[in-house]
């Protein structure tokens, strides 16, 4: 191997430093901001403070304590309820998605009878027909004035499912080909921007009295992250040889026993990384929580957004302080499951 010239090595390190700096600077700024006193937050005093001159914990105190409006400062509620809220709904939503998603993924991996993709024209035509059939009913429901109430939404949903099934039967009369992949349909749930579904969900949730409740948020988070769990876990299950479940069943285990005693322990690395991924998604969600919470259950991102006062504008210091606190759970979670994230647990299982 030939030694590269020194200038090349130096140039390489300079480039690396620039790229690393580019990506880590925002984090650096947030971390330092959390410890800066108010005068150092901005350049209002004529200087940029790259490093905190007088590090202080005031920002943490401000954000964690409740303050009833007095001189100079407006009413300020504590961030503690929002931290509690974030922890409960993120963990709850993650567990919910993992529970249904993992079972669904196992089913898709082992028992799926998918017969290839539906041709795009059939898929689009079917969607068009579905909308065409359901539209008059929607108008009817609106005219009857029941579409705003829980029974209206529930009945319309059931009607939609029924029409969908009938449409499949109808199509089957003159179309015999691949019936599409269920796994792909599940992924399609995530193929439009969340904004598009959040408002209908908000209307539904208000009809079902689920707005600003922890279980309402958990339900949404579970459903929204469910497709990710299915796809990630399915790929992990696909890697585990089917013979292992079969061996367990022949050895006297039930189908559930084979799943819980043999397959799931082998997929725990995948389960841990999926859990982390989904947890981060839920933890950092802003849009859904903003629209579905009001007073009792705003999460950390929603609370962060409210850290603005009429007197002094955005409260950069407390925002950064809370941001720093919000980083802790995913990082700790990540470190805890680090050993499970290492792949290759199935090595040696099967002679190939």
């Amino acid at each position, binding site marked *: 191997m030939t030694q590269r010239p020194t200038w090349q090595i130096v140039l390489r390190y300079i480039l690396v430093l620039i790229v690393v700096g580019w990506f880590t600077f925002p984090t650096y700024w947030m971390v330092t901001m959390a410890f800066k006193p108010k005068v150092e937050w901005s350049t209002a005093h004529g200087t940029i403070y790259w490093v905190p001159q007088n590090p202080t914990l005031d920002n943490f105190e401000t954000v964690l304590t409740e303050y009833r409006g007095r001189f100079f400062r407006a009413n300020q509620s504590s961030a503690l309820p929002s931290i509690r809220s974030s922890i409960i709904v993120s963990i709850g939503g993650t567990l919910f998605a993992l529970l249904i998603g993992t079972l669904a993924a196992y089913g898709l991996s082992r028992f799926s009878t998918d017969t290839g993709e539906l041709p795009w024209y059939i898929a689009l035509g079917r969607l068009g027909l579905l909308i065409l059939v359901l539209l008059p009913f929607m108008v009817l429901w609106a005219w009857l004035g029941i579409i705003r109430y829980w029974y209206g939404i529930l009945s319309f949903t059931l009607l939609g499912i029924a029409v969908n099934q009938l449409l499949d039967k109808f199509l089957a009369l003159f179309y015999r080909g691949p019936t599409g992949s269920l796994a792909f349909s599940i992924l399609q749930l995530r193929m439009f921007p969340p904004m598009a579904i959040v408002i209908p969900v908000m209307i539904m949730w208000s009809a079902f009295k689920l707005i600003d409740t922890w279980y309402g948020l958990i339900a949404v988070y579970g459903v929204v992250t469910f497709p990710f769990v299915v796809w990630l876990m399915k790929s992990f299950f696909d890697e585990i040889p089917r013979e292992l479940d079969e*061996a367990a069943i022949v050895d006297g285990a039930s189908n559930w026993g084979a799943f819980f005693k043999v397959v799931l322990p082998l997929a725990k690395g995948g389960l841990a990384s999926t859990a982390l991924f989904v947890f981060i998604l839920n933890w950092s969600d802003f849009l859904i929580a903003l629209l579905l919470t009001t007073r009792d259950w705003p999460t950390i991102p929603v609370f962060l957004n409210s850290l603005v006062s009429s007197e002094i504008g955005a409260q950069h210091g407390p925002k950064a302080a809370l941001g720093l606190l919000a980083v802790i759970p995913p990082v700790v979670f990540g470190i805890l499951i680090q050993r499970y994230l290492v792949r290759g647990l199935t090595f040696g299982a099967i002679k190939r």
Partner: protein
Amino acid sequence: MANIRLENVTKRFGRVTALQSINLEIHHGEFFCVLGPPGAGKTTLLRLIVGLEKPDAGTIYIDGEPVNDVHPRNRDIAMIFQNLALYPDKTVFDNIAFPLRERKLPAEQIKARVAQVARMLHIEHLLERKPGKLSGGERQRVAIARALVRTPRAYLMDEPLANLDALLRLEMRIELKRLQEQLNETLVYVTSDQVEAMSMADRIAVLYKGVVQQCDTPDNVYNLPANRRVATIVGSPPMNFLTCQVQRTDGQLNLVHSGFGFRVIGSDHPLWDCLCRALPAVQEVLVGVRPEDIRLYPEQPTDVIAFPARVAVSEPLGAETIVDVQLGRDIIKVITPPTQYFAEKQPVWVAFDMAKVHVMDVQTGARIYTTGAPEQLQCILPGTCA
């Protein structure tokens, strides 16, 4: 302790018929081999017996009881998968103990049983290890131990030795045979290796394209193959097949090939019966002779009738030499002792063991007749009878 019976069992996967009306009876305590080339449906047969697949038609009986709708866990049959399917995250002890734990046996009893089986298979020192840290042969033993530990009604093995190296395979073969004799339990053994089947089995079922071609003792499968397919699958190198013209002229029946000819003597001969009375329209038959039933002579022998031929290729294997010989328009394989040396293109004389000549139907490949004694067919040179 089990008697397994399959009655008209058919299994399809989509449009592919994996098994076609299988009828088999596997007796209690029998070492039963299912032999066939890859893709013959051997594994599907095992999976049907153990219950991992459901037959599309027909019934499977275990001890006279139909088990089509019995869940595999309740059939009490142990299966060793081709890839062994050891649980990689569990220690050897936990692997072996798994079936017992599923049966909720007390811990002490489990420990005792595992220890006993481990001693029997000489793997006591491996109990704390994970399967990934074991050698191929050790994994094999663990898989066998996991099957043995619960004393099932029958054992099914799916090419258990296929992934071992040649020497280990030899060793495990003997060990399996010894084990089966010791246990005296029903064992269904699937293999594509005819040597394994011949050396271990009490009976062999030869499977080809989802159909049982023959089900008999190794001796009969080898000596009286039901058809051309069986004769090709059993025996290495496979049997030579030579297409012969059937000549029925003035009270004589001759089978004539471009390199040799046979005369059927006496009108009470079974072949006469078959070719002149039952199948008078048949113009051609296949004559099958195993490579080990042919002898080569460098000079024309005086004591037997031999046919002139020419050596094409010679493959010395050490213990024996396989010689490809051009006989008439066909090439036949002959096994010769290594002491004999044949050069390429060398003229030789070919003599058949006349007690082991098979005659088969050209169309169906079914065996019509096998000579049992040398005097039943007379050798003639092809030129002399026309």
